[in-house]
């Protein structure tokens, strides 16, 4: 690294980006879900992604997590080329994902869901031999406290309310101890109070890790106080603070001013 010699500006000094997308395109049967998309996320950064339906937000997450292979472009996480890895390997590198529709294991309890997500050897024999240590138990309990589910530890996930399911999935992300969290619409269907709580939680998580949040709710995005990227038709339309983005005429035209 040569940036010690002549650092031109302070904000270029941080280490290499955690996530680096360059010229990424995804074509489904001639439809361009992503069109030459570029995105850079720095270590510890909290980033909000907004955009109208069909802008490619979820496809972008699918590309990063290995569910969809890009037709063209570069997708890197630290030094790893994500276009060559499968979902499990990418997750083990340190990328966690929360889905738009909360997805967990309904037959298992809150505790068991978190236990499965806990960072530990993932092979069949390792799982067979796995014994819950005091340390692992304390980690699970501290995450249950953090997402407000401590009282529901022994309840099956199937009987949680919608907001609690969202939090359980965020809790599962935390158990994975990822370096980068991808969070797809975390406050859909939440009450105002739950939304506030979630925003505070995500702000707290970022800093130690990088967090990318996809969201429609602009009040929530404002509460995050982060840099905002606006996607439209598979490309980046605008990027900057929420005020900058909200005043960008192109953004107003395609999204905000509808």
């Amino acid at each position, binding site marked *: 690294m040569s940036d010690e010699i002549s650092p031109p500006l302070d904000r270029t000094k941080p280490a290499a980006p955690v996530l680096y997308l360059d010229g990424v395109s995804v074509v489904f049967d001639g439809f361009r879900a992503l069109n030459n998309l570029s995105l850079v996320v720095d270590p510890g950064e909290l980033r909000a992604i907004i955009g109208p339906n069909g802008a490619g937000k979820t496809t972008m997450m699918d590309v990063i997590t290995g569910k969809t292979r890009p037709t063209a472009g570069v997708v890197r996480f630290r030094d790893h080329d994500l276009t060559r890895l499968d979902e*499990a390997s990418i*997750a083990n590198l340190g990328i966690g*994902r929360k889905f738009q529709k909360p997805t967990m294991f309904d037959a298992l309890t809150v505790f*068991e869901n978190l236990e499965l997500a806990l960072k530990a050897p993932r092979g*069949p024999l390792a*799982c067979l031999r796995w014994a819950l240590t005091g340390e692992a138990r304390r980690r699970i309990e501290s995450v249950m406290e953090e997402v407000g589910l401590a009282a529901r*530890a022994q309840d099956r996930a199937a009987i949680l309310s919608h907001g609690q399911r969202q939090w359980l999935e965020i809790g599962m992300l935390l158990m994975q101890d990822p370096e980068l969290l991808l969070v797809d619409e975390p406050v859909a269907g939440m009450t105002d109070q739950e939304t506030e709580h979630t925003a505070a939680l995500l702000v707290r998580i970022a800093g130690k890790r990088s967090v990318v949040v996809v969201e429609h709710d602009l009040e929530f995005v404002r509460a995050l106080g982060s840099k905002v990227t606006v996607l439209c038709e598979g490309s980046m339309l605008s990027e900057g603070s929420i005020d900058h983005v909200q005043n960008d005429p192109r953004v107003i035209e395609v999204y905000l001013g509808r």
Partner: protein
Amino acid sequence: MSATLASPAPAGTGRLTIRLVLLGAVLLLALLPALNRLPADSALHVSDFIVSITGKWITYAILALAIDLAWGYAGILSLGHGAFFALGGYAIGMHLMRLIGPRGVYGHPTLPDFMVFLGYKDLPWYWLGFEHFPYAILMAMAVPGALAAVVGYLAFRSRITGVYLSIITQAMTYALMLAFFRNDMGFGGNNGFTDFKELLGMPLNTANARAALFYASLALLVASVLICARITRSKLGRVLVAIRDAESRVRFLGYDVTRHKLFVFVLSAMLAGLAGALYVPQVGIINPGEFSPGNSIEAVIWVAVGGRGTLVGALLGAFSVNALKTWLTTVAPDLWLFALGGLFVAVTLFLPRGLVGLFSKTTT
């Protein structure tokens, strides 16, 4: 301080009851061959028929456990487990054929009768080693395990699930049936193997042999329950349930789903193979009919009727459906297939959790 917290697994009286019931059932079963020795006019005498048919059902129960482990827990609905069972049966059958020696109709010192009849000069290479009992038992596990590993690897790696996987396994058992019907496969064609004389120095078709095979089957059943319970109550068991309910979500948690499914599928096939190896000496015959797709489907119905996703359900289903079959095929043989189909439809519609669902409120 962590010791004061509740165990994460819901333990309690329910599990204790199940253990006591299982223990009682095993002890009761263990009495049958002993009661068989009582004089025929004794009130407690148990007939040869009861002992041999119960011994057969015990091997079916092991097959049901194997299917339940793959289907009830990991969501792999195999409609080809009868093939693993039959391959295990053929492995022990080859051993039994080798033990006949010069006592065959043609009196050939090494070649089984059907080979003499078909003009074989020497034993085919794949028959070598089967004169040793441990080798035959090893093959009864290794051959089904290897087949499951190949079929499973190709299917799971390509993410073939649900009904497509079921169709592939069904095709697998059908293809094996057709192959084993061919005389030049070297497995006795459509007659298969029969006229077995002895096993481990014990003449078959004697009360002693019946009792020994019965206890061997019972021991394997107990071992299978313990192995399956060890798996289903571990974190691996919870990973399997997670795969069953939301396979792709498990991948995003960093689990290599293909490896987990392969592990349980191969283990399940090996258990089924061992069950088949205990079944064949008890019924005294193995032929390609054991590969028929209907057999595999019937075994899946045992599990569905008993209650998939619980080990007790698999056992209950195997014993109850086979008891019904034995009774019905005696009083009204033509009705059996209608009853079996009707049973499956009725259970699917009205008892999705099987007979076990009648007794318990909890689910896995």
